[in-house]
């Protein structure tokens, strides 16, 4: 059996990580297109070669792809996806995916995201030259009623193993074939807010805080027991 100290210390470290995760979710509560992470702990019972039964706690953080609220901005180059799918962004490090549709034009009138990386259409980079831009629900881009390109909105057959990179970008951690997101609806003049629920996160914060406290008490109580054993047992 694991010692109480190991159990307590592991639990403290878990709560500390969870606290960091909550802090990150809350810090990004106003970041457009941000997707929160949800911690989960699983216990796996397994048998070792020697026939001993062991318990393993596996923790993982899953990116919640739950839809964020759509907020109106009336800005023609603000796009929000409703439903499954991601915008495709071409970075020098390769293709990345994002739900943040706060786009703008660079000096060559190319559609780019906040860091200046081009947003991909079906025919490659998108140039918007002219006056009025209209983006239809299926991602078709029209400039002065002339069709220019269609936004590449992609999804994946299996749940994607995403890694976050910062800059609101996701990277696939294992290569997967992308496919067209048929059900995604594009809303022009809207942004998708973070899917962070502040109430949920504050409750999780209290929970992590109190759990941390409980495990420190456990460690202290065990320490007191050990102190008794070491100092008082031998006394007559």
């Amino acid at each position, binding site marked *: 059996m694991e010692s109480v100290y190991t159990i307590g210390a592991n639990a403290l470290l878990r709560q500390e990580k969870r606290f960091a995760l909550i802090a990150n979710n809350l810090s990004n509560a106003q970041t457009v297109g941000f997707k929160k992470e949800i911690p989960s702990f699983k216990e796996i019972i397994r048998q070792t070669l020697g026939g001993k039964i062991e318990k393993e706690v596996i923790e993982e953080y899953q*990116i919640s792809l739950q839809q964020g609220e759509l907020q109106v901005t009336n800005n023609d180059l603000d796009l929000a996806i409703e439903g499954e799918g991601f915008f495709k962004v071409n970075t020098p490090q390769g293709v990345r995916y994002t739900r943040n549709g706060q786009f703008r034009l660079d000096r060559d009138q190319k559609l780019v995201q906040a860091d200046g990386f081009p947003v991909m259409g079906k025919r490659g980079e998108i140039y918007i030259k002219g006056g009025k831009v209209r983006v239809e629900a299926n991602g078709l881009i029209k400039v002065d009623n002339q069709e220019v390109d269609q936004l590449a909105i992609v999804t994946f057959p299996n749940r994607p193993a995403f890694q976050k990179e910062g800059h609101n970008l996701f990277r696939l951690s294992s290569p997967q074939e992308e496919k067209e997101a048929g059900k995604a609806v594009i809303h022009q003049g809207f942004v998708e807010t973070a899917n962070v629920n502040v109430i949920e996160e504050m409750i999780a914060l209290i929970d992590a805080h109190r759990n941390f406290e409980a495990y420190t008490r456990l460690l202290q109580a065990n320490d007191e027991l050990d102190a008794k054993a070491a100092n008082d047992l031998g006394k007559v």
Partner: protein
Amino acid sequence: MIRGLWTAATGMACQQTNLAAIANNLANVNTNGFKKSRVNFQDLMYQNLRTPGSTTSSGGQLPAGIQIGMGAKVVAVEKVFTQGDYTQTKNQLDMAIEGKGFFKLMSNGKEVYTRSGAFKLDKDGYICDSNGNRLQPEFAVPAKTATITIEPGGKIVCAGSDGKELGSVQIQLFNFPNPAGLQSIGHNLFVPSDASGEAVQGNPGTDEFGTILQGFLEMSNVDVVEEMINMIMTQRAYEIGSKVIQAGDDMLHMASNLRR
């Protein structure tokens, strides 16, 4: 010492910038031709404790890994060039641009651009803005002018009291590939930057350029209700950040008290 503390601090720093932008928007709610700013946020880099797809000690594969984010940052404070409302002034030198475009002015030999069309005459009769920067192309209104008519196409016609034309000039408008990349220098003025691209010149009403409306001014595009809601959200987000820091501090305190 404890990861979440700095993470929460980055969120608070973002909210501070946000509040500064909101304060500036609200302060300029009555500034003619003012364009509001908007702060864009991004998440910071992530610390990979375990990459998704790695194997567990029991030989299984993890569908998700553990990544811990480092908070948020401000990536840009961009100008939003939506149209502001119009206000009628009946002042014959007031011009509003209906649509895209900027007026070009000369300020100490430097080309600057503005959306504010509250023009006046300087002592030599030239059309200029409130700071004395002359509208380009420079034009002096003839001394005996009684009425000034500005056509939607940008032609300024000066006529005497007998209705005879004394002089006229064609105003040009300028636009940029990426107006959000213009640099604000105060006094309602913008200067081009590397990000904005080169100015494109045109007559009002042609191509993508807007038309000129005489006797009107374009007000700021700041929506007070929207800014107030943003302010409330910013204040609360700041408060939440400070609560997270308090909780982190408390956890640190408990950890340090483990050994009594």
